[in-house]
């Protein structure tokens, strides 16, 4: 890394060493200790025989100080790091098969085709591929690789730079007004762009990340939250929907100051439910919008304007810009375009494409259709491509259809029917097990089988041009 480029590691290293950085049940890790541990990881990475060369490191993680220090160590060593779910085997295996990474970092255990090379100071095992595949060196600007949460279709990673990460973290810290007094409960996984943005923005602000070992729907979670005097909670739509069912009231948490929501659209009635509740509790509620392709965050609704802007994705984050571009051949449809220092270099679908440089030059076509009101607040009205957002995960509906049709004698049409439900219209070509189809599809997508509603039909309706007629199915 050239000395002029700042990383998240550098931002974290600038804070007073005696201030707490991460609190977990095993104890508190202060900034000084976190930085020392991360430096130790960086040294260990670069002192392996092959360590002098840049090569992608695939890190299987769940939120912990050890995983965060390992991630920071990769950033400090300027070794590209890809964050993967420690437990999601379906997607992880697809990624491993597609990229055949030369290095894998695991908390424990072994991996077929890999041998143990060294143990990092965080306790993570560095495994090297026994039979490394020929691949060009990753592009010099790549710092981080994230999955796009699509688990169907071709495994795809988003290529992000140090500048992407620091710009987005600082922008988030700015509009949320984060100071070193903030304590964020880590309610989302760190391999997920929203979850990682919590960690990065709090490291940038010199604030505290609290590792909560409980699920947010357990009373233990909120006891932990209170005991550690946490100030903010982050959730995707289904979490806020669930918390409403549990009659969660922000006023019962005396230290809670900020609620943030992203990862898909929270429907208006829920926003209207939480707006007065958070205000009464003396807290702020931020409805936000983003994509992994923009590191995490693109826009937010200022908390004091939320009541007037229900349903809006708000305004661009500091340093970014939203515009609309008319789509040719449509009746006035406009695509939401984002420009900013947090826009990815591009995708990677194989180890060869990790060598690619900046393909987007700061301009991201979001694929969302939208409009803007007279106050400059943006609204999303639909998707250009056929995607569903299920439990915070983006699911490409075309990929779902392709997968189902490859495994079963059916023609399939997948539709997002809202509220985390996927409608699957199936035209049967030969006898098959509908139950198995539902279960297998759900497993591949990582969603509950009951959130898939299969509808066998005699024949899928087709348009005049011979395409599946989704409008007719939706009606």
């Amino acid at each position: 890394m050239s000395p002029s480029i700042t990383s998240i590691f550098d931002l974290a290293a600038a804070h007073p060493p005696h201030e707490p950085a991460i609190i977990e049940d095993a104890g508190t890790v202060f900034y000084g200790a976190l930085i020392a541990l991360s430096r130790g990881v960086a040294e260990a990475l670069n002192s392996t025989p092959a360590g002098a060369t840049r090569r992608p490191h695939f890190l299987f993680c769940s939120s912990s100080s050890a995983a965060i220090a390992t991630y920071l160590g990769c950033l400090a060593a300027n070794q590209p790091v890809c964050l993967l779910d420690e437990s999601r085997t379906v997607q992880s295996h697809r990624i491993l098969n597609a990229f055949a990474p030369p290095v894998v970092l695991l908390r424990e255990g072994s991996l077929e085709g890999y041998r143990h090379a060294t143990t990092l100071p965080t306790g993570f095992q560095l495994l090297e591929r026994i039979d490394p595949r020929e691949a060009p060196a990753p592009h010099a600007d790549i710092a981080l690789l994230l999955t796009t949460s699509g688990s169907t279709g071709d495994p795809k990673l988003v290529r992000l730079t140090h500048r992407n990460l620091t710009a987005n973290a600082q922008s988030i810290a700015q509009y949320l007004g984060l100071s070193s007094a903030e304590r964020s409960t880590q309610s989302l996984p760190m391999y997920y762009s929203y979850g990682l943005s919590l960690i990065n923005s709090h490291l940038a602000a010199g604030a505290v990340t609290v590792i909560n070992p409980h699920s947010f729907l357990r009373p233990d979670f909120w006891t932990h939250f209170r005991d550690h005097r946490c100030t903010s909670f982050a959730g995707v739509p289904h979490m806020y929907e669930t918390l409403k069912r549990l009659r969660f009231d922000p006023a019962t948490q005396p230290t809670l100051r900020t609620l943030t929501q992203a990862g898909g659209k929270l429907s208006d009635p829920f926003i209207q439910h939480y707006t007065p509740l958070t205000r009464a509790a003396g807290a702020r509620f931020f409805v936000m919008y983003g994509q992994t392709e923009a590191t995490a965050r693109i826009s937010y609704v200022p908390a004091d304007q939320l009541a007037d802007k229900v349903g809006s994705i708000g305004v661009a984050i500091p340093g970014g810009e939203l515009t609309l571009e008319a789509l040719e051949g449509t009746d006035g449809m406009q695509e939401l375009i984002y420009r900013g220092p947090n826009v990815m270099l591009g995708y990677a679908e194989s180890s060869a494409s990790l060598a690619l440089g900046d393909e987007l030059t700061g301009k991201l076509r979001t694929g969302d259709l939208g409009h803007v009101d007279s106050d400059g607040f943006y609204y999303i009205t639909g998707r250009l491509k056929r995607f569903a957002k299920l439990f915070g995960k983006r699911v490409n509906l075309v990929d779902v259809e392709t997968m189902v049709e490859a495994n079963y004698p059916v023609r399939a049409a997948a539709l997002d029917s809202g509220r985390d439900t996927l409608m699957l219209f199936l035209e049967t070509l030969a006898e098959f097990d509908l139950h198995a189809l539902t279960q297998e599809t759900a497993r591949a997508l990582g969603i509950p089988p009951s959130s898939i509603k299969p509808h066998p039909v005699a024949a899928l309706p087709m348009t005049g041009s011979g395409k599946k007629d989704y409008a007719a199915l939706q009606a």
Partner: protein
Amino acid sequence: MNRQKLKTCFVGALGIAPTTDLESVSFGTTDGWDSVGHIALVTELELAFEVELSPEDITELTSVQKAIGILGQHGVTFDN
């Protein structure tokens, strides 16, 4: 009858194999029984048994035995 219904709910919500021993299934340890699976399970149980679970019911629902107890309080009986 109700036991079978219960099993269908768990299989449908959590994505576990129909052959799974339900007694071994628990919140936070069984693959699929995370917060997403949990709410799917609540929805399935409410639809199948025509009950409305309270916030307390929802947080206490952490195993099949607990489910039987909670549903019992709503007048659903399970005879072996």
